[in-house]
């Protein structure tokens, strides 16, 4: 029993050459957790400030709209049963305060502080209250809907306990839950092409762990433990609630846009109606519907291709009545644009990045907590490295990308959804067979696709070799998949195309769409499905390097290549050169937003006065 203390503790072990860590750079996972918790508090404060900053222009725009709705309702009631003069006096008073504040804002007119404060309240409070109500409403609707819809969207299934790997997964989940002192969450499997895992849910009680089947195939037990410890630690830290509230903010923004768009287009009205139905239907009645609505809401803020464009599209024919309606709605157009512009600007540059930073801190915290659970930082670090080598794409998981262990949108390698990938493989195989060893076959799928399209182009131009190749390809394909082979144009078609036969052209176009769907390029557009991070210029996932560095400080053994200081300096220089331009652009945007807000308010006031007068005229008669 010769026990040498140095081999046990490693304190006296010789330092490897080029070692970057001194003992003081080490950090225990308890310290790391405490540090990240403190940072969370600071960043939460930042988020609240960002939300307030974003709320001011929004409230300024929304408030007059609310007054407008109230005024129209009051006027309509007044038509049938006249309201008391006291009500109109109150309305006048409110309007006066608002106008005083508005004027002092625009023309720096002096006013006594009390009127100014009251006026600001009149201008801001209803809009702010409305936004908060929207947020609370969204919170309530989606909390009731639960996570069932998300699981359906992901096509999640229960693990099969009779299979070794899936049994291992269920075991590891149980072990990690025991280590964290939590009830074990339910675990679901997704047969997705990417290796990734996520925890979804609204609270620790209904949390589900979703793991892609490839993850358990790719990782060994230690790595699997690391990943699941991270997910379960995230549940224990209360990240689900934070994520839920954060997504609710963005969904509320989407709802606001939908409400403001609703006079203009059927699309937004349909979305609104679905939300209302979702809110009214009983608890968890229709989880799928809730997921669909969440998807719609996160999508609806994109500035282009809106109902409103179609509405004001000058090319569509419209009747006299319609053009009058357009005239009537014209002020709301400004409001609409002001809301969308300020949402886009402030959420992208102010609220989004602060939320992203907050979420990154939570991820670091979860990593540190995972180390506490497994006491094995190497498991998590090597798992992260391996997961980042490959695409972590999980179809149907785009909206919840922030809940995954690694960013599901990062493109390590091309990944296709299973059906398309299968079809693509058949095509690629046939292509290889048809090559017949004549030429050097292309190695990866993307290169094959490129080669195939080049050969097709050559065949259309009349290259006989290319035509022969396509013939061989069609024959090889008809062995494995006759349906697909039927879609390949015959050499006769290609010849007809050269002479300009329109029918052949149509057939070739159809082929192009078939192949277009199967080309690896298509997945790029698939990746751009909307999610919370599309609201921010800053991603919600910290970079792999930063995460590994933190794990290394907690004791993981990682071979990181030395960071390139040159690129850092180049970036700094570029930043310094371009920062004035950026600032200028920012200032211009702010100016544009304030102009839009003021224009919208002015138009709305005129519009309201107009409508009120119209009502007064009707009442008079």
């Amino acid at each position, binding site marked *: 029993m010769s026990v040498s203390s140095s081999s046990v503790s490693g304190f006296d072990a010789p330092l490897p050459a080029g070692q970057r860590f001194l003992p003081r750079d080490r950090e225990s996972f308890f310290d790391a957790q405490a540090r990240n918790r403190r940072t969370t508090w600071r960043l939460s404060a930042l988020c609240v400030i960002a939300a307030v900053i974003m709320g001011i222009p929004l409230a300024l725009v929304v408030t007059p709209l609310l007054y407008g709705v109230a005024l129209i309702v009051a006027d309509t009631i007044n038509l049938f049963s006249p309201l008391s003069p006291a009500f109109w006096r109150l309305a006048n008073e409110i309007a006066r305060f608002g106008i005083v504040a508005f004027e002092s804002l625009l023309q720096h007119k002096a006013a006594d502080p009390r009127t100014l404060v009251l006026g600001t309240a009149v201008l801001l409070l209803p809009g702010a209250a409305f936004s908060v109500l929207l947020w609370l409403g969204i919170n309530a609707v989606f909390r009731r809907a639960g996570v069932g819809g998300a699981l359906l969207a992901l096509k999640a299934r229960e693990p099969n306990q009779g299979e070794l790997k899936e049994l291992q997964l269920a*075991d590891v989940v149980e*072990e990690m839950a025991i280590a964290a002192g939590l009830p074990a969450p339910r675990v679901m499997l997704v047969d997705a092409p990417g290796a990734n895992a996520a925890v979804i849910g609204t609270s620790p009680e209904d949390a589900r762990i979703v793991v892609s089947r490839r993850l358990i195939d790719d990782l060994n037990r230690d790595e699997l433990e690391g990943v699941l410890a991270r997910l379960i630690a995230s549940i224990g830290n209360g990240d689900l609630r934070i994520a839920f509230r954060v997504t609710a903010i963005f969904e509320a923004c989407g709802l606001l846009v939908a409400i403001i768009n609703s006079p203009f287009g059927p699309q937004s009205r349909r979305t609104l109606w679905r939300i209302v139905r979702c809110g009214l239907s009983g608890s968890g009645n229709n989880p799928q519907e809730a997921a669909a609505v969440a998807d719609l809401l996160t999508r609806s803020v994109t500035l282009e291709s809106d109902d409103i464009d179609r509405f004001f599209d000058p090319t569509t024919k419209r009747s006299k009545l319609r053009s009058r309606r357009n005239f009537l709605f014209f002020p709301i157009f400004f409001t609409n644009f002001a809301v969308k512009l300020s949402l886009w600007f402030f959420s992208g540059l102010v609220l989004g990045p602060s939320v992203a930073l907050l979420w990154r801190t939570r991820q670091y915290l979860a990593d540190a907590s995972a180390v506490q659970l497994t006491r094995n930082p190497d498991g998590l670090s090597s798992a992260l490295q391996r997961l980042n080598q490959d695409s972590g794409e999980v179809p149907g998981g785009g909206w919840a990308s922030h809940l995954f262990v690694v960013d599901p949108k990062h493109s390590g390698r091309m990944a296709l959804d299973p059906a398309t990938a299968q079809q693509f493989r058949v095509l690629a195989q046939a292509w290889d067979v048809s090559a017949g060893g004549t030429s050097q076959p292309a190695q990866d799928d993307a290169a094959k696709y490129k080669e195939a399209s080049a050969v097709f182009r050559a065949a259309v131009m009349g290259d006989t070799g290319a035509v022969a190749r396509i013939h061989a390809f069609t024959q090889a394909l008809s062995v494995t998949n006759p349906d697909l082979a039927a879609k390949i144009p015959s050499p006769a078609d290609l010849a007809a195309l050269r002479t300009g036969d329109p029918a052949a052209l149509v057939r070739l176009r159809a082929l192009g769409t078939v192949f277009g769907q199967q080309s690896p390029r298509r997945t790029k557009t698939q990746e751009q499905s909307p999610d919370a991070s599309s609201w921010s210029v800053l991603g919600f996932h910290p970079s792999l390097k930063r995460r590994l560095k933190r794990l290394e400080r907690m004791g993981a053994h990682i071979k990181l290549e030395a960071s390139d200081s040159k690129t850092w300096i180049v970036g700094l220089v570029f930043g310094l050169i371009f920062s004035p331009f950026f600032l200028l652009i920012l200032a211009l945007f702010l100016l544009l937003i304030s102009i839009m807000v003021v224009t919208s308010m002015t138009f709305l006031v005129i519009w309201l006065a107009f409508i009120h007068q119209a009502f007064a005229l009707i009442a008079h008669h």
Partner: protein
Amino acid sequence: MHISPQMIGLVIAAVLLLWVISVFNALVAMRNRVQNAWAQIDVQLKRRHDLIPNLVEAVRGYLAHERSVFDSVTQARAQAIAAGANLEQRMAAETILSGALGKLMAVVENYPQLRASENVQMLQEQLTSTENRIAYARQCYNDEVMKYNTTQSTFPRNLFASLLGFSSATMFTAADPERANVMAKI
């Protein structure tokens, strides 16, 4: 508005009382977590006892000539169950049981064709998981004890924690035979 000294005193007293209440509640929650973690160790040990007969049955057929290993496992299990509430005896018996199960796994490792069979792999996985669960339950208990002890013994909470009936909990430490095992390996 005039602020009297009495009012300031009252406000300070109220804040102090609220703080004491919150500390008391936090300590109670932590103590419950410690107790729960302790119970979890028991649950996992019990689970192992329940699992062992099935596990042994699953490989007994393949390893009829390795009777001594099976006997030691069954014996250790019986001892652990018999120890009952006597903590010290029980922990010693559980340690022996862990050793016996480890030996069983080592024996299985010696038969390549056995190792390749799906059934045996499942068994290995279950044994690994069972041992892991016990280890993690102990680790969780110790983490909770550390948190609780730190909270109740740091200033200024230590001034009244013992008055409110909070005493420090003891950590779970490896029994001597287990530690001796580790030393021997080094």
